[in-house]
């Protein structure tokens, strides 16, 4: 399979489906594992890394995941493809631009990835749209069991799964939920969310994980403590308490915008519409920022029945040209497509060659204009 087979579409978990998907973009669970009888990667020679890679690749490619899987030799891929895999959340930045023999096994529907020779020998992840952590947990636990039948993991009764970095020790589980929180940002309450997360030992990261800035009001919230708390306790805490509370706060902020600051809300949405429909050069950051406001407006209409002059405009221009065909309506899926397909590596991969920043900005603006002006 080629990356261009998937680059022109969006993945299932980003399609805007799943519980609470107006605010919760996706749920992800990652497990870190190392093989018993091998050193951690920092002490492995190139040959040892290659041996681990081959062994784990064979195991993973033989699993029945209920979907076709494909393998990517990450260290041999062109830089653009590696950027694409990061944009797609299929591999981490660390894996994309690390050193030595390393690879990734990816399910074609993109709900599963295994990174081989990242920081640990093996990191597996399962992704789903909306708040679906229990389902992710069930699935990843099953996959982990299947792998464990074929290899022996480094494990101690005292410390659990042994990881290269002591911060992942224990269950070695990372539960991450990606949230869209534009109203908390707009009403100046996002700092409160950061502080509350910090108090609860949770990490807040940007759209593309570790070391990235929040773009387009997307935030990833994840656990940091992996020792002394079971997998099921972390998941229950996230699914039943932490995430529903944040969703309530975001909804309260959206209601506050509607009832007390509707001018501010309408100004943001209208400016976003005007710029996106008319700009001829638009950077990736600006596009994310503006599309975020459009996404919020559409979701407020859809989920809260909100009606303001700017939100009503979204309804009318979604039917522009009298077209009733579904694919021409402005839907959350259209916005999500624009979010993903206008990211730099997606743009270039779909265009068929590398482009400099100005050409990328022009192409991005053209794609957005054509999606939002249905007459053109």
């Amino acid at each position, binding site marked *: 399979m080629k990356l261009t087979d998937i680059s022109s579409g969006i993945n299932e978990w980003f399609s805007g489906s799943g519980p609470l998907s107006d605010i919760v973009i996706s749920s992800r669970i990652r497990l870190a594992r*190392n093989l*018993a009888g*091998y*050193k*951690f*990667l*920092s*002490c492995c020679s190139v040959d040892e890394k290659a041996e681990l890679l081959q062994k784990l690749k064979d195991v993973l490619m033989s699993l029945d995941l209920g979907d076709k899987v494909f393998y990517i030799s990450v260290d041999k891929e062109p830089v653009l493809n590696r950027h694409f895999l990061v944009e797609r959340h299929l591999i981490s930045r660390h894996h994309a631009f690390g050193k030595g023999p390393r690879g990734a096994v990816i399910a074609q529907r993109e709900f599963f990835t295994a990174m081989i020779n990242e*920081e640990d020998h093996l990191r597996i992840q399962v992704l789903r749209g909306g708040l679906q952590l229990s389902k992710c947990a069930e699935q990843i*636990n099953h996959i*982990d*069991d299947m792998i*464990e*039948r074929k290899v*022996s*993991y*480094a*494990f*101690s*009764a*005292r*410390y*659990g*799964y*042994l990881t*290269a*970095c*002591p*911060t992942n*020790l*224990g*269950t070695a*589980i990372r539960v991450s939920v990606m949230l869209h929180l534009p109203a908390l940002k707009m009403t100046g309450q996002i700092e409160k969310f950061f502080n509350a997360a910090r*108090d609860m*030992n949770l990490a807040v990261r940007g759209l593309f994980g570790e070391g990235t800035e929040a773009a387009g009001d997307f935030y990833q919230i994840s656990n*940091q*403590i*992996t*020792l*002394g*708390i*079971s*997998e*099921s*306790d972390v998941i229950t805490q996230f699914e039943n308490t932490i995430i529903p509370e944040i969703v309530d706060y975001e909804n309260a902020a959206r209601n506050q915008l509607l009832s007390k600051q509707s001018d501010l809300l309408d100004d943001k949405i209208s400016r976003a519409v005007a710029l996106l429909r008319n700009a001829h050069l638009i950077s990736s950051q600006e596009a994310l920022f503006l599309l975020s406001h459009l996404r919020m407006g559409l979701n407020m209409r859809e989920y809260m029945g909100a009606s303001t002059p700017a939100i009503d405009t979204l309804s009318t221009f979604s039917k522009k040209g009298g077209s009733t065909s579904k694919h021409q309506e402005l839907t959350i899926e259209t916005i999500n497509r624009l979010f993903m397909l206008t990211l730099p590596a997606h743009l270039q991969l779909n265009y068929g060659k590398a482009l400099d920043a100005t050409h990328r900005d022009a192409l991005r603006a053209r794609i957005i204009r054509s999606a939002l002006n249905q007459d053109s």
Partner: protein
Amino acid sequence: MRCQICNKNDATIHLTEITDGVRAEMHICELCAQEQGIAVKSQIPLNELLSSLLAVQPTDEELFGSSEKDSKTSCPHCGFTLDKFRKEAVLGCPYDYEVFEKSLLQIIKKAHNGNTAHCGKVPSKASAGIKKQAKIITLHQKLQEAVRSEDYELAAKLRDKIKKFET
């Protein structure tokens, strides 16, 4: 946000109290805080802030708990040293957790909110001995939790269970 006591002024003081693992939040105004006897220092002098920050900076020794012995030790399995760990923040092999246990414990505690023992999945392939050990560790953790929340009935049951496992 309005003060939860007088319901008139803006709440400028936000208190978080954790009792027996249960988190309670309180949002009140300065006046009510004074009435409740909650001391509020509205401004902390810069030098006081800086010196208190410096005071809590852990020294290398505190951070790595490195006993003299550990800093000279290298792992017989991978040749890794604590110096290398300080630079790279990753370990060399699974045995390092035993070889440098004393020094790593500080870091483990710091990273995991004071926890020092696993609670959760155990590989099905693990030996019977490891499975039993892991079970006892988890039961001990539950016992501590029961004692903390003063559920002595549960604590007694857990203690009996542990005894049964250990014999």
